[in-house]
């Protein structure tokens, strides 16, 4: 007689049979049910047995074939469970309506007005957004950041029915600007999928090829193609990667892709690996605020890109997240101490990267992530680290002091660019 652990209700629901009283009262001591959990024999009224004991009825294979277990819930119990769940759901809805009747009315009015605005917009035609001629975030970036803010407004925060992104005037695009554009498209697709986005390709073939190689045109139907390399050009890019987890294999693949061109020393490749892993770790742990309704974040998400120019010997890696930014995160965590540690956001970033001082944990071993971003540049012969976060841009070069700049427009999130010169 086989005994397994189960509750009486589960026995009933899985076999469709009631608890077998006759089995319990069978004659010999050895036939009594033996609990496999506590090892004791049980007998007596089956309704009074501990909840974890039951006896399997079918002791032979022929019995099992003759009486296969029927997995069904009795009709009266099904009806009872349904009515109870309906009653609970109705009670929850009544409670919610009692608590915020005014807010519910406002929400419905706001939704109605938004739908009307989208309908009027659709009747007028698409909103046109011209892309700046020079799309860059590491130099002369005010126009580019304003364009990104407009794109976010139109495609995500207050989405319109149709938007036309005009790339015809684009003369030059830097890879990090392309990566941030991709991130904005990703967020727009997630939060406003009904907003129809139409684009045209830049007339400049180099810009079109650069955006194609990094995977930008995949987000616009009809404009992507299999290969994007322009003949005679020496720039090579790794298609952008995006995820919300810390994945070492992705970083290893990226580094090994450019290994032959970069001629990385072992120390350099390890420093780069650690720097990117730290960026992913910071994004997953600190960059994004706590989830609240109404906030349009892709929580934990990051974007990564690599590229090299065989002619000039330049190699670069770009990492971007759409979180609060380094100054925003530090100020949120260390509100009381920030005025004593740094006066401006740029000083905060410099102290965090150079000294690694800002950890909410009191142990001396924490707060060492951001200095690893700079360690890669220090390990290489000639390199540059650029961090753009909110309204701050900081440039770190090997052997030189950091250069900081206050931007007129804020870039949400944190953009990290490593540039090496071979």
């Amino acid at each position, binding site marked *: 007689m086989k005994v397994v652990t189960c509750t009486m209700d589960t026995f009933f629901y899985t076999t469709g049979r009631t608890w077998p009283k006759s089995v319990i009262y069978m004659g010999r001591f050895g036939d009594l049910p033996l609990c496999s959990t506590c090892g004791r024999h049980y007998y007596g009224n089956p309704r009074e047995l501990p909840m974890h004991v039951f006896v399997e009825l079918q002791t032979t294979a022929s019995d099992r074939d003759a009486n296969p277990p029927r997995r069904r819930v009795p009709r009266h119990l099904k009806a009872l469970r349904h009515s109870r769940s309906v009653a609970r759901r109705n009670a929850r809805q009544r409670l919610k309506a009692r608590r915020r009747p005014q807010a519910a009315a406002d929400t419905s009015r706001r939704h109605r007005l938004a739908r009307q605005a989208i309908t009027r917009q659709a009747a007028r035609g698409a909103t046109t957004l011209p892309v700046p001629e020079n799309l860059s975030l590491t130099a002369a970036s005010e126009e580019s950041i304003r364009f990104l803010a407009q794109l976010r407004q139109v495609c995500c925060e207050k989405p319109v029915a149709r938007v036309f992104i005009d790339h015809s005037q684009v003369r030059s695009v830097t890879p990090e600007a392309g990566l941030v554009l991709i991130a904005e498209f990703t967020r727009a697709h997630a939060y406003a999928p009904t907003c129809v986005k139409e684009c045209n390709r830049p007339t400049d073939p180099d810009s079109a090829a650069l955006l194609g190689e990094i995977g930008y045109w995949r987000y616009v139907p009809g404009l992507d193609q299999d290969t994007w390399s322009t003949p005679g050009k020496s720039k090579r890019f790794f298609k952008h990667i995006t995820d919300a987890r810390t*994945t070492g294999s992705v970083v290893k693949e990226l580094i090994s892709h450019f290994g032959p061109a970069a001629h990385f020393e072992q120390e350099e490749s390890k420093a780069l690996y650690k720097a990117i892993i730290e960026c992913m770790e910071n994004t997953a742990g600190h960059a994004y605020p706590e989830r609240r309704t109404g906030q349009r974040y892709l929580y934990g998400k990051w974007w990564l890109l690599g590229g090299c120019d065989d002619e000039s010997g330049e190699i670069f890696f770009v990492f971007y997240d759409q979180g609060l930014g380094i100054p925003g995160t530090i100020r949120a965590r260390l509100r009381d101490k920030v005025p004593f540690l740094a006066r401006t956001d740029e000083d905060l970033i410099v102290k965090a990267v150079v000294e690694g001082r800002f950890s909410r944990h009191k142990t001396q071993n924490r707060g060492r992530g951001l200095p690893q971003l700079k360690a890669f540049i220090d390990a290489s012969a000639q390199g540059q680290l650029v961090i753009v976060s909110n309204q701050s841009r900081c440039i770190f070069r090997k052997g030189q002091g950091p250069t900081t700049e206050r931007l007129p427009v804020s870039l949400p999130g944190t953009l990290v660019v490593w540039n090496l010169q071979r």
Partner: protein
Amino acid sequence: MKIITIHFVTEFTDCPGGRHRHQGEFSGEEFRDDLLVPALRNHDRVILDLNGASGFASSFIDEAFGANLDRQVGGAMVESKLAIDLKDDPTALRAIRELRQVSFA
């Protein structure tokens, strides 16, 4: 005396990740809980060969060898049993050395 050698690259991964298990694969928490702590509890001497990995982030090192390891097995056990062999990453070696007093091969 029971001695075990843990080859990090072959028995765990050559691409270590971040700090916590829920943030990604091959994290410091996963390495500590699944490999290091059982080895320390069941053996008298644990030799940890960390050579060959792509790199160890500071968050990985802190989670794998830091205060949480002390909470699970005790600092005295770690210092008496654990020996670390890491020759190709002096930065990580320095970080582990600053974190705790263990013997190094």
